[in-house]
């Protein structure tokens, strides 16, 4: 039987809200852990938009793109966590603003 379809607009709206939340989190949180999490949320919001669009057009491309985004997110997190550890070693805190002395 056909599952009741969720309208694409709903999916996209949710993706937009998630993306906006992630962006706000990225902008307001100074803790690097939360920064990384916000970025994850933004990536997943983008992935959700792909899924929703793929379901709407009945195309596999949306899910393929989501797999790419997952791989990207995994590698991003590994690099991000490594940076996080270095930051903690260097400064003893996870405040991203504490790493601003090079102004780079």
């Amino acid at each position: 039987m056909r599952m009741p379809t969720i309208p694409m607009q709903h999916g996209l709206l949710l993706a937009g809200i998630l993306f906006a939340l992630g962006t706000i989190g990225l902008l307001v949180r100074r803790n690097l852990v939360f920064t990384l999490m916000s970025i994850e949320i933004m990536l997943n919001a983008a992935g959700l938009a792909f899924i929703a669009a793929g379901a709407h057009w009945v195309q596999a491309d949306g899910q393929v793109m989501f797999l790419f985004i997952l791989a990207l997110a995994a590698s991003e997190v590994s690099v991000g966590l490594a940076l996080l550890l270095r930051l903690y070693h260097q400064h003893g805190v996870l405040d991203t603003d504490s790493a601003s002395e090079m102004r780079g």
Partner: protein
Amino acid sequence: MLQLTGVIPAIPFFSFLLLAVFGPRMARKALSFIGVGSIAASTIISAIVTAAFIPGPPSGWAYDQVIWRWISVSSFQADIGFYLDALSVVMVLVITFVAFLIHLYSTEYMEGDEGYSRFFAYMNLFVASMVTLVLADNLLLLYLGWEGVGLCSYLLIGFWYTDPANGRAARKAFIVTRVGDTSMVIGLFLIFQRLGTLNIQDLMHRAAQQWPVGAAVAIAAAALLLGGAVGKSAQLPLQTWLPDAMAGPTPTSALIHAATMVTAGVYLIARTHVLFSLAPPVMLAVAVIGAATLLLAGCSALTQRDIKRVLAYSTISQIGYMFLALGVGAWSAAIFHFMTHAFFKALLFLAAGAVIQAQHEEHDIFKMGGLRRMIPITFWAFLISGCALAGLPIITAGFYSKGMILWGAWSSPQGAPALWIAGLVGVLLTSLYIFRVIFVAFFGEAQIPVEHPPRLAKNLPMIVLSVLSIAAGWLNLPPYLGNKLWLDDLLHTSLPALAEKPVGWLTEGWSEGSITAAFVLGLFLAYELYLRHRDATRPLTENALGRAIHEFWYADWGFDFLYDKLFVAPVVWFAQVDKRDFIDKFYDGLAGLSRACYRALSATESGRMRWYAASIVGGTVVFIFIVLIL
């Protein structure tokens, strides 16, 4: 043997190249060997050339060696060619020999200096340029040497370039002589345009044929060349650079600013004597410039405290004598005085250099004293050369050459009693100022302990030059001493003899007697004022007039002040105005704008990651807005 002429300037030139390229990596001993050895080789070759030239002269007493054609543009030809006649033979021999002695002296004088290789490279280049100047058979090659020696003079005055004052002195020398050089090069253009050649013998030949005596063009050409000579030889009104040129190392002052380069103007006038003979007003100007310069510089020398500045003014004054001789047509007397002056003035500077190094770089004669016993060889060298400078009768060389000049000033058709009197007063001044230095610095109480007393490399050149300061005079024994005018007779093969007019009441013997009297008077005054009563001059400088005159003479008759106000200040003012003109406003604005943009952008680089993220977000929003709405 005369074919070796071209080698004389070539050896120092190649050793200059060697020293300039490899010098900094060579050992001191190798540097000394190359630097001094090249000049020694040049001296030997010029001695060989002289020995071949005088007993067996070529036809016409002149030998022209063209090495190669330098420039050939339609009708304009210039060769690298060397012209050997009695005048250039005497000049080259004196220059290379004195240069050799001074190079030898420099090995000890400069031994502790880090610029050792640079010094010898410059000095070698100088000798090469100077010999080129003297041997050149055309005015263009002469001008090349002329500028070459000017360059070396600039480099060596500013040798210790870390002191800005030395750099200023070097620039002053370069710029002031440039005024004369510009006049000279215009003279060269004029001569080439009117006579179609720059070969010196050809142009003198053509000038004598084409221009009548007193022709306007001859006067213009001679006056323009005189401008160059006045600049190079530090004569009135371009004499201001020479006292400041004493900032260079003392061997430089001895070689360049006393013995050789500053007499290049004298050589130029003697070399082109036909042009000057065609222009009687210019001849008169040469004589008057010489007489005025010798008096003015003599007065200034009286007031200086720096031993080298006394000698610098003395050099200006002695070259004034040479100009006086040239101006009255006593050509060979001028060259004779050049030669004796080269010996005794080089010696004075070398002795002064030894004194300065022995006294912890002290230049002020009033802070010295009692050096007579502490450095006896230097004292005797200074005394002999001082006597030669002042003209100690019969014994020293300076007496004979000055005697010839003064006799020429009296007896020549262009001569005048006023010129003779000026020369005689000059003798008095010379004797007074040089014995002032001798009595103040070498007699009295010792004030500064002696360190670095001169050793062999300093003493040997001083001894040789002491002998020459005496013996060089015997080359021209005047009539009352046997009338053996060897040098005069030799020089008359290339320079015309002095045309004597019926003389008045004065005979040559009485003229020389007057010199003796002036010398003795100067010596006596110096003894009374500076040796017997050490403070005898104080009352003179205590009243207002005396002090004013003292300061006026001390400041070289205010020439520096005048030129500062007249030339330097307007040029600086104009440069300041030009710097702020409206065209620059646009470019200044452009620079200001980009600087402001840079500041604004660099302010955004705060190092805060959230700020960057916000910028990206803001930018993205703006672009989406633009794409969707507009």
